[in-house]
């Protein structure tokens, strides 16, 4: 192995024996010292242990013990490792020393080598110098001497070198030896190290065991001490408790005694008090008994008195009871009567109620029947009307056909028979069909009248104001008179005959007034809708709604209303005149044209009341009237109508017709005779032809041919004549 690449364990340096001995000695000494130290420490610790036990019981001895043993083991370990590593350190030291030495040796060797090289160089130079000298020599002896010396020199040089080599080889050998020795030594050291390690491990194990035991014992002691201490404490506490109990008991006994004494005392006191109270109460009882006696005496007295009183009262009471019973009987009787009356009343009420109910039911039923009847009647009326119309139409058609036939015949007669120009009579009814109607458009609706009226107003506006007033005044007079007369004549006169009793102007004004005053009758919605319209249209629409609300339908109604207003006003004026005779005229004239707006409502109310009545009557009347009218109507007009139809052919014409008939009958007889004659001739002709046929047959038969004289030949001439009619042979064949 190389010098550099080896371990320190393979150190080669041959260490002097003195040194090695020294080291070993030192190691041994150290070991002894360590052992001594450990011993001493153990001893001291053991001593300390006992001392510590006594000294500080409080501190945990086990911990102390653990610490101590830890420290001890630590020390043991350190010492052991030191012991082991001592070898390594020593080897290191040797190695480093060897290196130092080696370096030194190397230096010396180098110096030596250098010196040697120098000397040998000098020698070599000397030799070489001598060589040059030798060349100069020419004498062989000299040359030989020189050579000899030269060879001698060379030999010495070589010897020197050899010596050096020898030395070096020696050194090498020495170092080899040393290497071997070192190896051996290192092996020894390794052995030693192993030994020490084992030893250390052994001692460590031993000490560990000892320490463990000690620690355990320490723990045990500690636990024992703890147990003891706890036991002692326990005992102490038990004793304490026993003492306390005893004391308590004693205290209790003493307290019980005390309480007994107190009780005794209290008992005695109570007995004394009791006696005292007893005597006192006895005396009290005596006094009270005396009082009782007294009270008994007074009681006796009072009892007698009261008994007497009682007797008196009893008598009275008896009397009272008698009267009471009498009264009671009376009351019961009266009660019975009352009850009877009540029952009667109830039955009566019930009866009446039932009656009432039945009657109402009857009424309802009758009403229903009546309604049914009405409905039926109306239906029948309609049907009848329809039937009537149908019958009418049918008859009319029939009649018309007859008329037209008659006229046609008349025309034929005139034209064909008489050869006269026929003029058609006027026939107005021919164009008409259906039954005659009675003025269906006589009653124009109220609204129409109003519109017309308002429209007129627009025209009249062109005229001057003055004119207007004058006309109003002019018309007012007669109109008012008319109204009065109209009203006097009859409330329910037909409106068509008296349309102008109230002037249009007043009516118009009235209407405007109505528009303004009776606005409440108009629906608010309608008002809203009306706002964008013209004034005229607005008022028109308003009036329409007002009329519909009031139930005015016909123009007539409107005039009636106007009349009513005027009348009402007049009545008022009369009243006023009656009141204040003097200046009523002016006011009345002023009010004449228009009723005061405040009175409009009143008058309206009155009017509606009246109007409704009138209408009811009218409607009732009209329900029946419509039928009766239709019936009545047919009698006059229809007769006339039918009459006109019947009288299409005038009597003059009838006479003509009669004469014509007679002539024609005569003509007819002549004609019949002629026809009879014609028939006879026909028969004769037929016979003739038959005969011809028979003849022909005979002629043409076969027998004829067999005959000697054929008849054909005979009848040649006849034949020619008979061929004209064909029917003859046919009949012959038959």
């Amino acid at each position, binding site marked *: 192995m190389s010098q550099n690449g080896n371990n320190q364990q393979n150190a080669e340096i041959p260490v002097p024996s003195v040194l090695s001995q020294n080291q070993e000695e030192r190691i041994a000494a150290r070991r002894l010292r360590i052992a001594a130290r450990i011993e001493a420490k153990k001893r001291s610790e053991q001593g300390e242990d006992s001392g510590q036990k006594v000294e500080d019981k409080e501190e945990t001895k086990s911990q102390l013990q653990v610490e101590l043993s830890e*420290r001890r083991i630590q020390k043991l370990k350190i010492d052991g490792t030191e012991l082991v590593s001592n070898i390594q350190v020593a080897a*290191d030291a040797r190695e*480093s020393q060897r290196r130092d030495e080696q370096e030194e040796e190397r230096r010396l060797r180098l110096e030596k080598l250098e010196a040697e090289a120098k000397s040998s160089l000098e020698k070599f130079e000397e030799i070489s110098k001598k060589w040059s000298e030798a060349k100069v020599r020419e004498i062989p002896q000299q040359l030989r001497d020189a050579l000899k010396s030269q060879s001698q020199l060379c030999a010495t040089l070589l010897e020197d070198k050899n010596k050096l080599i020898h030395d070096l080889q020696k050194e090498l050998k020495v170092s080899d030896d040393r290497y071997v020795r070192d190896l051996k030594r290192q092996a020894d050291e390794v052995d030693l190290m192993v030994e020490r390690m084992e030893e250390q491990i052994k001692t460590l194990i031993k000490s560990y065991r000892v320490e463990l035991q000690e620690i355990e014992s320490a723990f045990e002691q500690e636990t024992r001490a703890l147990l003891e201490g706890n036991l002692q404490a326990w005992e102490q506490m038990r004793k304490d408790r026993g003492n306390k109990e005893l004391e308590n008991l004693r205290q209790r006994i003493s307290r019980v005694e005390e309480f007994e004494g107190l009780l005794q005392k209290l008992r005695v006191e109570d007995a004394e008090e009791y006696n005292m109270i007893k005597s006192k109460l006895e005396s009290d009882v005596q006094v009270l008994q005396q009082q009782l006696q007294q009270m008994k005496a007074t009681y006796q007295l009072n009892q007698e008195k009261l008994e007497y009183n009682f007797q008196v009262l009893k008598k009275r009471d008896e009397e009272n009871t008698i009267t009471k019973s009498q009264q009671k009987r009376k009351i019961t009787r009266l009660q019975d009567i009352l009850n009877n009356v009540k029952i009667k009343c109830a039955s009566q009420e019930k009866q009446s109620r039932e009656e009432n109910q039945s009657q109402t039911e009857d009424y309802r039923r009758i009403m229903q029947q009546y309604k049914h009847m009405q409905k039926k009647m109306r239906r029948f009326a309609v049907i009848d009307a329809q039937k009537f119309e149908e019958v009418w139409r049918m008859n009319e058609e029939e009649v018309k056909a007859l008329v037209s036939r008659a006229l046609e015949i008349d025309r034929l007669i005139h034209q064909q028979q008489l050869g006269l120009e026929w003029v058609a009579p006027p026939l107005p009814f021919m164009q008409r069909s259906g039954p005659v109607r009675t003025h269906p458009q006589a009653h124009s609706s109220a609204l129409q009248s109003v519109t017309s009226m308002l429209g007129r107003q627009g025209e009249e506006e062109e005229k001057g104001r003055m004119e207007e007033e004058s006309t109003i005044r002019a018309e007012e007079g007669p109109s008012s008179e008319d109204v009065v007369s109209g009203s006097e004549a009859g409330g329910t006169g037909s409106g068509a005959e008296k349309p102008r009793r109230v002037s249009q102007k007043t009516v118009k004004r009235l209407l405007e007034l109505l528009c303004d005053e009776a606005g409440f009758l108009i629906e608010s919605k309608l008002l809203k809708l009306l706002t964008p319209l013209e004034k005229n249209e607005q008022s028109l629409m308003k009036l329409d709604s007002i009329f519909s609300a009031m139930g005015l339908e016909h123009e007539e109604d409107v005039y009636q209303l106007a009349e009513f207003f005027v009348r009402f006003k007049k009545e008022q004026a009369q009243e006023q005149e009656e009141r204040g005779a003097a200046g009523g005229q002016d006011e009345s004239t002023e009010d004449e044209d228009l009723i005061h707006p405040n009175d409009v409502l009143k008058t309206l109310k009155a009017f509606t009341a009246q109007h409704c009545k009138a209408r009811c009557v009218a409607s009732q009347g009209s329900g029946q009237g419509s039928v009766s009218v239709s019936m009545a109507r047919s009698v006059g007009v229809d007769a006339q109508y039918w009459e006109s139809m019947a009288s299409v052919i005038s009597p003059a014409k009838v006479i003509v017709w009669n004469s014509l008939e007679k002539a024609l009958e005569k003509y007819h007889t002549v004609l019949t005779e002629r026809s009879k004659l014609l028939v006879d001739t026909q028969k004769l002709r037929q016979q003739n032809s038959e005969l011809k046929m028979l003849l022909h047959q005979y002629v043409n038969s076969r027998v004829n041919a067999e005959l000697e004289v054929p008849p054909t030949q005979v009848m040649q001439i006849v034949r020619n004549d008979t061929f004209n009619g064909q029917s003859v042979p046919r009949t012959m064949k038959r």
Partner: protein
Amino acid sequence: MDETVAKTLLRMDPPVFKSNPAADPRKMRRIIAEDAEWSLAVVPLLTNLCLQHIVSNFEAQPMLDDLLPSHKIYVLEKLPPSLPLHVTANLISDEGYWKKCCVQRWGLGDVTEYGNSWKRMFFERHLENIIELFIPDVTDTKVVLDMVPLCKNYVKRLTISQLLPPIRDPQKPEEDDSSDSASDSGNDGPSMDHFDFGVLLDKLIYLEELHLSYGVKGCGMNFDWNLFEFTFRDCESLAKALKSCKTLKVLRIHQSRVDDEKCRLLVNYLLDHPALLELNLSHNLIGDRGARAIGKLLNRSCLHILSVYDNQIRGPGAQALGHALSKNTSLLSLNLRLNRLGDEGGQAIAQALVKNQTLLSLHLGSNQLSEPTAIVLSQALAKNSTLKSINLSCNRLGVDGGKVLEEGMSHNSTVVDCDVRLTYIEQESEVCISQILRSNLSKTCRKHTIEANIK
């Protein structure tokens, strides 16, 4: 087996029935053998037969995960350890089987070193064996590469204690010697000087530790320096491989004649390695320049442990290391044992201790340190409050140095281990120092207990 069955069938005869007429008819039907040796237990169950079949044909048709748990256990018990690895490697995870394999191959081993995993142990040792017996240009690299897919999931550490050199002709070694690590060894020389880790390291995805030693074990009398040659080419390929292995945490290259140049090359590739925590280059030939490179690496990695003991680092190298140490914030342990730092280097390291706040352990044993270093060190110890362990053994500090050190230690309260053996200091100061250490230890112990109590 069949014979016994046949026998039992033959012996199923009336006498048996006659002997127990009152017995249950169900029982009567049962085969009751006269043969005392026969029992139902002898007849193997069908399941067992099947399982045995599975075991015997496991190589042809591996079937394990489909089995019931109890059957699986049975099969694993019965499986022979000689099965080819490509069948078993990724299929069997049962520790029992791999323990069997390991024991059969190497005898009993300490499984705790392998994270209590026999499988890991097996594969690591198997791979190590393959690599250790790998002869460049003779052994096919396929032998190694074939193993990779099988063992890459299990190998976490590789401890390679030897790497065989290529076989050479007698003349060639001389040539090689002359050319050394120059580039002209390419043409007629072997394709590689040792096993090339470049093909392996980037494939082992879980590799964390790598211990290498470029040398031959047990060469005996065939010793030749060439057997222990760590060539420049090896160094370069190794460095590249290391760079590609991102999971590596521990790297140890020892007894491999790593000199300054190779050290610098290695360091160059290891700069900014993401995972490397421990670097061990002990027992090499690293000098000052290599030390300077390592100093540079210190501050460009997250190294926690650095061991460069038994090298040839002198004053300048130590100064470079000291400079790096004064700025470093990750290094926890530094071992410079058996170097030649001298007072110059020792002072530099000691001064670095004043500034450093992370270093816990420092080993300066056997470094030719003397009194001046002791003075600076005592000053540093008085100021430093992180260092726990310092080793100054085998340095000639002398009596005065011991006194100075004692004084320095008296101001310190963290150091619990100070080795001053063979430093030629007085007994008294040694005792004093040991007392201080003890008090420090008890203090820290107390602190620990307090902290534990608080927690």
